[in-house]
C-alpha cells in the first residue's frame, strides 16, 4: 500500500464535507503537528552537535593531516590535468565520485557524511595501519548513520560501552559521537581516540596550527621515526598541498635531523636564503648558492652522496701539477673552478644522441671575479711539441675567446670555458656553450630567495631520454626491454611527460629547517 497522502473530493453534501474538514483540522492540531514537532525535536536532539573534535584528537601523533574541504578538493584535484602525468589507475583513485562508488553509497549520502574538515592522524607512518579519520557529519548524515547502522553488514561492537560499529566488508571500525564520525581500520586506535584523557588531547593551539586556513587542500605534519629511511635526514615534516586544474603547489618544512645536519656541516654551515641567479635555459635548470666556493662544495656534496671521488683529496690530486710540468686538463679545470661561487647555475640543455655515446650537454655559469680570466686563458702553456693537434691539452682559441679541451668524439664531448657577462661559463660541450654565449647573459635573480632552485621540463627531458634509449634497445642493450616493449613503454612515458609543462622546486635552509616550495604546472589544455 502506498504511503502517499491522497486527497479525495467528496461528492456528498457540504455539511458533511465541512464537518470532515473541521475534524481533519482537529486531527492535524491534535496529532500530526505535535507528532511532527516531536519528530523534529527528536531529530534535533539525535543530531545535536554535542562533541568537540578536540576531544578525539590525540596530541603527539606521528602524523596529523587535515583536509579542509575533502569532497570538493577531491573533485577539483581529480579534474586536474596533472593526473595525465601519472598512470591512469592513480588518477582514478582521486575523485569524490570514485569514493562514492567504492563505498557503495550515493553521492548525496557521502556529501552528508564527509561534510566538514577531515582529520587524519596516527603513528604508523610506514603502512598507516592505525590511521584514524574524524569528520563532522551534517544532521542528515548523522540521521542516515542511525538508520544505516541497523543495515546488514554493520556489526555492533560493544567495546566496554564505547559502542563501536564494524563495517564487516571493508573491515573498518567506526563510532559516532554527536555529529562526529570517527573511523579507523584499527580497533585499538579507534578506542584510544575515544578514550583520551583530558591532557592527552591536542590542544587548541595545536589544532589552530593544523587548521589555519589557507588555500591549500591538505595540510599536515609527520613526525619521522629514526627507523624510517627518511629519519636519517629529517625529524618532522609539515606540508600543505593544493591541486588545481592546471597546477599543483606544495610547501614543505622539514626539521632537519641535527646529527645529519652536523655531518654535512660544510654544505649547510653558511647557507641561508639568498637571491639566486637565473640559470641558462635548459630542460633541467639548477641555481644554487650554499655560501661556499666550488672547491668546498665538491667534497661537501661528496659527503652527501657518500662518493669516493667527490672528496677533498681527489680534488687535490686533480689540482696538482703533472710531473713533467705540462698543464693537465684536470689541473686546469680545478684551478679555474676552485674559487668560483658561491652562486652556481647549471643547465642540462639537451642530450646529443648523435654523439659517440648519448651525451648530456651541461652548461654552468659560476659567480666570481672574471677580470683575471682572459689573462689566465692566455697564459695556458702550449702543449708539448710531440703532442698532436687533437691531443687532450687545454688550448685557448683567442678568436672565440674560449678555452677548449679536445677530447674524444665531436663538439658535444669537448669541454670548454669562456667569460660570460660577469660569470665564468664552463660546459661539457662546445656546441652548447656557443649557443649560450650567443645570447645575452640573463639579468636579475629568481623571484624567490633560497639555496637551491631546480626547474625541469619533463617533456623535453623524456624525449631526449627515450631517443637515447632507442640506441641501446637497438642492440638489446637495455635491460628488460625489447624494441617493441620499449616503444610501448616510451609512448606511455611521453604521454605522461607531455601533460606537465614544468616542475620547479626551491629549497632554502632556515636554521634547523629546510623549506621546500614545489610547483608543478601542466601543459595548457588544448583549445576546444
Amino acid at each position: 500500500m502506498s504511503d502517499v497522502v491522497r486527497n479525495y473530493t467528496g461528492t456528498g453534501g457540504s455539511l458533511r464535507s465541512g464537518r470532515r474538514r473541521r475534524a481533519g483540522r482537529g486531527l492535524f492540531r491534535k496529532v500530526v503537528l505535535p507528532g511532527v514537532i516531536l519528530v523534529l525535536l527528536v531529530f534535533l536532539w539525535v543530531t545535536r552537535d554535542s562533541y568537540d573534535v578536540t576531544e578525539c584528537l590525540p596530541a603527539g601523533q606521528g602524523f596529523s593531516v587535515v583536509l579542509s574541504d575533502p569532497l570538493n578538493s577531491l573533485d577539483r584535484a581529480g579534474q586536474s590535468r596533472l593526473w595525465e602525468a601519472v598512470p591512469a589507475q592513480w588518477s582514478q583513485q582521486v575523485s569524490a565520485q570514485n569514493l562514492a562508488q567504492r563505498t557503495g553509497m550515493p553521492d548525496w549520502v557521502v556529501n552528508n557524511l564527509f561534510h566538514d574538515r577531515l582529520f587524519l592522524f596516527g603513528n604508523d607512518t610506514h603502512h598507516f595501519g592505525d590511521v584514524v579519520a574524524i569528520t563532522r557529519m551534517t544532521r542528515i548524515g548523522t540521521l542516515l548513520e542511525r538508520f544505516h547502522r541497523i543495515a546488514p553488514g554493520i556489526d555492533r561492537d560493544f567495546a566496554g560501552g564505547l559502542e563501536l560499529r564494524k563495517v564487516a566488508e571493508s573491515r573498518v571500525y567506526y563510532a559516532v559521537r554527536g555529529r562526529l564520525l570517527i573511523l579507523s581500520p584499527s580497533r585499538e586506535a579507534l578506542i584510544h581516540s575515544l578514550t583520551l584523557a583530558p591532557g592527552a588531547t591536542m590542544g587548541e593551539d595545536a589544532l589552530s596550527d593544523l587548521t589555519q586556513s589557507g588555500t591549500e587542500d591538505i595540510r599536515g605534519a609527520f613526525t619521522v621515526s629514526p627507523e624510517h629511511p627518511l629519519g636519517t635526514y629529517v625529524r618532522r615534516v609539515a606540508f600543505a598541498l593544493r591541486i588545481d586544474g592546471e597546477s599543483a603547489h606544495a610547501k614543505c618544512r622539514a626539521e632537519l635531523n641535527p646529527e645529519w645536519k652536523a655531518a654535512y656541516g660544510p654544505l649547510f654551515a653558511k647557507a641561508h636564503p639568498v637571491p639566486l641567479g637565473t640559470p641558462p635555459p635548459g630542460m633541467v635548470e639548477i641555481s644554487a648558492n650554499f655560501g661556499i666556493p666550488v672547491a668546498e662544495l665538491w667534497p661537501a656534496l661528496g659527503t652527501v652522496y657518500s662518493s669516493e671521488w667527490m672528496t677533498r683529496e681527489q680534488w687535490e690530486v686533480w689540482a696538482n701539477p703533472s710531473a713533467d710540468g705540462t698543464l693537465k686538463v684536470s689541473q686546469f679545470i680545478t684551478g679555474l673552478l676552485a674559487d668560483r661561487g658561491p652562486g652556481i647555475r647549471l643547465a642540462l640543455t639537451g642530450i646529443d644522441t648523435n654523439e659517440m655515446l648519448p651525451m648530456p650537454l651541461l652548461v654552468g655559469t659560476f659567480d666570481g671575479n672574471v677580470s683575471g680570466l682572459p689573462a689566465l686563458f692566455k697564459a695556458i702553456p702550449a702543449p708539448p711539441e710531440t703532442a698532436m693537434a687533437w691531443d687532450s691539452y687545454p688550448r685557448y682559441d683567442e678568436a672565440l675567446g674560449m678555452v677548449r679541451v679536445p677530447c674524444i668524439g665531436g663538439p658535444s664531448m669537448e669541454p670548454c670555458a669562456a667569460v660570460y657577462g660577469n660569470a665564468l661559463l664552463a660546459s661539457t660541450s662546445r656546441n652548447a656553450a656557443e649557443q649560450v654565449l650567443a645570447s645575452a647573459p640573463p639579468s636579475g635573480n629568481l623571484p624567490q630567495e633560497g639555496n637551491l632552485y631546480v626547474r625541469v621540463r619533463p617533456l623535453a627531458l623524456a624525449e631526449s631520454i627515450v631517443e637515447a634509449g632507442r640506441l641501446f634497445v637497438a642492440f638489446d642493450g637495455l635491460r628488460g626491454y625489447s624494441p617493441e616493449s620499449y616503444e610501448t613503454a616510451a609512448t606511455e612515458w611521453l604521454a605522461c611527460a607531455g601533460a606537465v609543462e614544468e616542475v620547479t622546486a626551491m629549497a632554502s635552509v632556515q636554521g634547523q629547517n629546510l623549506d621546500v616550495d614545489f610547483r608543478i604546472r601542466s601543459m595548457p589544455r588544448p583549445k576546444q
Partner: protein
Amino acid sequence: MSRIILFAVTCLIALPCAHAFEAGAAKVEITPPLETPLNGYYDRLGRGSMAVHDPLWVRCVYISDGETSAFLLNADLCIINEELRDRVLELAPQGVSRDSVFLTATHTHSAQGAMCKGLLFRSVSGRFMPEVLEATAQRFAECMNQAYAGRKRATIGHGTTTLEDFTENRQVPDGPVDPQLGVIRVEDSDGNAIAIVSNVAAHPTTVGGVDMMSISADYPGFYYAELEAQASPGCVAMFMNGAEGNQRPANPSGLRGWAFTEHVGKTLAQKTLEVASKIKCVEAKLHVATVDSELPLSIASSLLPEKAMLKTLEIEGLLLTFFPGEPCVEIGLELRRQAKARGYADQFTVGLANGYLLYFAPRELYGNASYECAMSQYGPGIGEWFHTEFGKLMTRGEPSPSTPEVSPPAVETLGPASRIRLAGSGYEMGRQRGAAYREALQQAFRDNVVVPCDAKEWIPNTGLWPWAPPFVNQTPLALPRLAIGARPMLATLAPELMDEVAGIADGAGLPFDAVWLTQCAPILAARSNKADLYRSPFCTMFALTGDRAGADDCLVGRNFDWSKPEQPVIVEARPKGLRRFVTIGFPWTVGAFSGMNDAGVVLCVERVESQGEPSLDSPPIDLILRDVLQNAADVPAALERLMATPPSRGYHVLVAGPVGGEARVVEFGAAPAAREPADGLLLGVLPDSGAGNADAIARYTRVASLTAAERILSAEELATALRDREPGTEGQARILNDWTRHSVVFEPKARRLHVSFPGSAGDLGEAVTISLASGAER
C-alpha cells in the same frame, strides 16, 4: 603484304639497337666538411677531421647490353654502411632497380665516417651526422644520373695480370696473397676509354701518424690522378678492392708517409694502364643477380644483421662477386678456383660492397689470435657459406650438392641418463648430437654462458665495462667479446673436433661460438676466481694394475663430480677414419672427461686447483683428451700425443690401457710430470703429495684403504668402492657424493666399461655395460 614487309624492316632496324651496348661514366666529389669524423681507425676516438689532403669522390660506370644494365659505383669511403646503402637506393634514379646498383667502397681509412647510426659502430666511425649521410647519398645519386645521362654506344672488356711484391699478408707472415690485378675497360665507339676499373686486394691504410686526421682517398687517390692523367680525356678511373681482409700493400723499399702512398697508387695506375691497353673490348652480354641470404648464426646477432645482400655481375666470361664486408684472401682465392672450375674465364672478388658485416676469416684461421679473425663473427664456416651462396648465383656450371639433412639419431633413455650412438665425420657426429640434444644444448649455453653474463659475473671489471650504468644490458656485447677471447683455444684443436663443434652448432641451431663458449665455460669460469660459480670437478680416479687387478691386469675406477645437475650422456662414437670410443659427459660436451677407445685406452681427468689456473693458450683439457682418445692405439701413444699438445696447468690426467704397468697419471703443474703406479695402485691425486685439497686427500685416502687388502680386486669390488660413503665424512670428502654425475669401472683388456648414474636419492643405479670389443655393441 606491305604491312608485313614494313614490320620486318622495322624489326631489322630495331634489333641491333635493342642490343646495343651502352656505357657512361661520371664522378662527383664527396669530400665532407672539416670536423667530420673519419672512419676506419679506433685510435681517432671519433674526433673530427682537421685537413684535406686530397679530395674524395664517388665514381660510377653505367653499362647496359640493352637488356641488362648495371650501375657500378665506387666511393672513396671506408665502408658502404647500411644507412648509406638504403638511402642511395631510395635516391636512385626512377626506374632503376636495386638489383642493378652495385655500391662499393675503396676502404680508405681517411674518409668520412659519421654515417653509422648504430651506437657500436660509432666508436670507429665517429658521431652520427645525418647531414653528412644525406649529402653523401645525394652525390651518389647525382653521379648515377650523370653517368646515365652521358651514356653512349660502347664496348667492354677485361684483363688480368699478376703483380709481384705489390701486396703482402698482414695476418700471417709469408701467408697467401692474391697477386691478381683485374682490369675492366669500357670504351666508346672511337676506342677512347670511358672508364677503367681496377681490382686488387690491398688495404688502403697507408695514411696515418701526423696525417691521421687528414681527409684522403689514400693510395687510390694517387691511382686516380695518375691513371686519368695518362688515359683518354674524360676517362673515369675506378678502383674496386678485392678480398683484402688480410692483405695490404707491400713496402719492400721501406718508404714512409705520403711517399709510400703515392708509390702504391702510381704503381697500380701504371700496371692497370698496361693491362687496359691490351684489352679487346666487345659488346658483351651482362647478367646481374642479387639475393638476400640468411647468414650463418652469429653470437653477435644483436649487433649484426641476419641477412646479407649478395650480388654478382657477369660480363661475358668475367664473374664479379660482391662481398658485403672484408673477406680474407683465402676465401677469395677459393671462390676464384671454384668459379674457374665452373667455366668462367676470370673472377674478381669485390669486397666492401653493398653492406658491411665486418671480416670473413677462413675456417683454418678462425682460431688465429688476430684482428681479422676477432672481427669475423659468423663462425668458421663463413667462407664455405659464401662459396655456396655465390655458387647459387653463378650461371655457368653446376652448383655443388647441398649437405643432406641429418635426422637426429635415437636417444636411449637410461634412467636419469641417456645414451646416443654417433658415427661419421666429425661434422656429421656433431650434427647428430646437436640435433638429438638441441634443447639441452641451447639450455646449456643459456645457463653456462648467458646467465653468468646477465648476472654480470662474467663481465670484466676493467676498461669501460664497470662504468656501464645498471640499465645497460652488457650481455650482447660481452658474448662476442668472450667468444673472441676463447677462439685462440681453437688454434691447436684437432680439426675434426672443431668440425664436430661446428656440427653440433648446426644441429642445435646455435652459433658456432655459442657451442665453443659452452665447451670453454668451465675453463673461463676457473680463470677468474669464479670457483663458486663453476666449482671445479672434484673427481675420483684410480687404476689397479698388475696382480691387484687379477687377470684383467688393469682396472680403472672413476667417479665424476660436477656441481651442476646436468643430464649425463653416454656417447658411443665411430668417427670416420679414427678410433671408436665411448665417453661419458653431458649433452654439450664434445670433449672427454671419462672415456675409453676400442684399443682399451682409458682417459680420465681431474681438476687439481693447487696445480695452477688453466690458461687460454690451449683448448680445454677435455677436448685434448678427446683427440687423444680417438687417435691413440695404446698408452704410450696416448702419452706421446698428450704431451705433444700439453694442456694448460691445473689438471691430472689418468691414462691407462690393457697393460697395467703402462698406466700413468700425468700431472699438469708448472711442468708436466708422469707418475707410475705404486704397489699396483695409481691414484689420481696422492694424498701425501700436497696437490689435492682436504676433500681430495680424504677421498683418495679412503680409496687407498678400500683397495689396500692384499688380494685381487674384481670389477665388481671396484664398483662397490665407488659407491662408498664413508661414515663421518661429508660433501666431496666422500667417494660417492651429491655431485657425482657418473661412476665408471673400466676393464681395458676386455674393452668393457660399466657406467652407473645416481638416481634421485643420490645412490648409484644399476650399471650399464658397454663393450668396445670388435663387433660388440653392448
